[in-house]
């Protein structure tokens, strides 16, 4: 890669400052489409079936639980006075939080020119969409009479018509989550168009040719098209960035606009967004650490990628830890007896068993990522990524259940217990999530092929590997990151 400029000799780069390539082993761009598309070709491997069958069974269980809940009523859940928001809202917030990493990777990191995102953005966006689907089930069902869900939307009904009440944060949430889902699908699909064309051009069967041909919309790779495409992609990234920040902020307003101690705080929007990204990166790592091995994608999702994602997890986990500490500080500093009681109750009350795992999983364990050994050890990364999501589940449990179970009047205190329907519905949403994700990786390119091609040195017309004659230009990028 050493090149000679005509006038002055190039300064030599010391080895410790050498950029690490984003795609390992100097793979060429044809290899990328071969490798990624081959995951969807041929018979599915055994491990795929071993994951898919239990997922479908879980999905069936979800269907049964939802049918039981719809036909019987919300009473089948453990929600009972004073805890009227139970596992339904815990799981809603948990799933929607997981969804945030996809948009963060695809939009915010795009605007920040983080080129490593190309290796993980497609899978993360798919994860976002499926997580939002799982999340959407809960608000739709917790209203009790599912058949009136359409009253949430501004559709005229026969009672006046009475319109939705837009002064309530719950209505804002409807708009935020449905916009988030729609825009995530648009963004994901637009990214897929050139890659569907890759699949169309190598499809063998008639069915595959027809379907990939249909959904790639006649994409030819024309540069006049790419020019509009890249602008639209940039705009979608620019629109999704305020969107992803607003969605979990609005979810947090469901809580913080109310008057309850522990909920009524201004720290909630940034704290919820940081927690969402934290849990989302946890889920991305949980999915991709095994998949890169099973699908032999080690040259695309390199150890460098894992390392960066661990660092993002560490950073957001530390923000969450700061928010926990700040909540306690403000409770003390406010002088409000109700706030102070709530936080003492959180740490020392009957639900201490929910608060302790939250602190250990979210604040203490991710700190291990300060050490390179943990970031480079895939088993450790996998286990910590699961612990992160366990911790984030407990965070929502702490906020919702501890926030509600002891309010201002001791006579109305209570203790919440989930029912078997709560537990089975939650397990069932995993069935929905993994069924969709496994189908996605079998039928669609799991890696953004054209984007990964675009960050290789072979794709850079000013790089010797891209065909540049050495006297033309000094190579400006080697498709890598400064270590």
């Amino acid at each position, binding site marked *: 890669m050493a090149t000679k400029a005509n006038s002055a000799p190039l300064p030599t780069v010391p080895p410790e400052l050498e950029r690490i390539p984003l795609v390992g082993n100097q793979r060429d761009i044809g290899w990328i489409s071969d490798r990624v598309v081959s995951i969807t070709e041929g018979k599915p491997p055994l491990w795929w079936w071993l994951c898919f069958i239990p997922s479908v069974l879980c999905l069936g269980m979800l269907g049964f639980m939802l049918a039981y809940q719809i036909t019987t009523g919300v009473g089948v859940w453990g929600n009972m006075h004073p805890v009227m928001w139970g596992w339904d809202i815990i799981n809603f917030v948990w799933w929607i939080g997981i969804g945030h990493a996809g948009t963060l990777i695809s939009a915010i990191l795009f605007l920040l020119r983080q080129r490593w995102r190309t290796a993980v953005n497609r899978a993360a966006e798919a994860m976002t969409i499926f997580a939002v689907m799982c999340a959407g089930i809960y608000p739709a069902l917790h209203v009790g009479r599912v058949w009136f869900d359409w009253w949430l939307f501004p559709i005229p009904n026969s009672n006046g018509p009475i319109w939705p009440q837009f002064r309530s944060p719950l209505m804002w949430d409807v708009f935020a989550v449905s916009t988030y889902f729609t825009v995530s699908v648009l963004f994901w699909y637009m990214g897929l168009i050139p890659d569907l064309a890759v699949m169309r051009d190598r499809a063998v069967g008639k069915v595959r040719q027809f379907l990939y041909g249909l959904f790639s*919309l006649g994409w030819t*790779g024309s540069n006049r098209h790419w020019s509009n495409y890249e602008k639209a992609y940039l705009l979608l990234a620019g629109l999704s960035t305020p969107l992803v920040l607003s969605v979990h902020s609005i979810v947090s307003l469901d809580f913080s606009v109310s008057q309850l101690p522990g909920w009524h705080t201004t720290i909630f929007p940034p704290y919820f967004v940081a927690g969402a990204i934290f849990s989302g990166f946890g889920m991305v790592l949980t999915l991709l650490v095994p998949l890169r091995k099973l699908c032999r994608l080690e040259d695309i999702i390199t150890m460098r990628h894992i390392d960066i994602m661990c660092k993002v997890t560490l950073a957001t986990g530390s923000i969450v830890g700061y928010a926990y500490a700040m909540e306690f500080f403000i409770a003390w500093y406010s002088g409000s007896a109700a706030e102070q009681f709530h936080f003492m109750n959180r740490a020392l009350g009957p639900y201490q068993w929910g608060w302790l795992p939250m602190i250990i999983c979210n604040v203490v364990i991710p700190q291990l990522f300060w050490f390179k050994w943990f970031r480079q050890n895939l088993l450790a990364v996998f286990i910590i990524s699961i612990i992160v999501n366990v911790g984030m589940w407990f965070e929502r449990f702490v906020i919702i259940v501890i926030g509600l179970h002891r309010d201002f009047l001791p006579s109305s205190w209570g203790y919440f217990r989930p029912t078997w329907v709560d537990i089975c519905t939650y397990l069932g949403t995993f069935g929905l999530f993994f069924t969709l994700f496994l189908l996605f990786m079998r039928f669609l390119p799991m890696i953004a092929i054209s984007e990964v091609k675009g960050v290789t040195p072979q794709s850079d017309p000013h790089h010797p590997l891209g065909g540049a004659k050495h006297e033309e230009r000094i190579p400006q990028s080697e498709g890598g990151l400064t270590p």
Partner: protein
Amino acid sequence: MSSNRAYGIIAEFTTPAAIMHAAEKIRDAGFTRWDVYTPFPVHGMDRAMGLKNSKVGWFSFFGGVTGYTTGMLMIWWMNAVNYPIVVGGKPMFSPFSAFPPSYELTILFGAFGALGGMLFLNRLPRLHHPLLKNRRFAKVTHDRYFLVIETSDPKYSEPGTVKLLEQAGSNHIEVVEE
């Protein structure tokens, strides 16, 4: 080359640098109905082809403005005009409580504007394209780069254009039928 009408000449290149220089040559020769086909967006190609800034931004902008206006007007009309209900003594319409849904609609319509504008400007979806029938051209989504000059270009002449593309360094040139 055959009885069918020709769509244009395709010239294959194997590196992004080669096709970029070829595009600069074709641009300077004054062709108008031609295009470059690549597996990924090649940076600097817009300038090499002499393309102007994309107009997708306008679609997105008008989408966003429409979304915000729709949100604000809808909420004002529904909650303050058509069926006002007092809730907790709050004003019937306040721009502050109407802002979050309007903000989301801004983004929603803006996103539809961006995707729809991109598809409209690119005249997509299209179910048929002469180039997509060509077997060699299928490699454009894999690892090859193509420069295509259409027969409808006023400067097109089969021997002259082929010669120009040969000089530009193409390793394979053929005529594609309509």
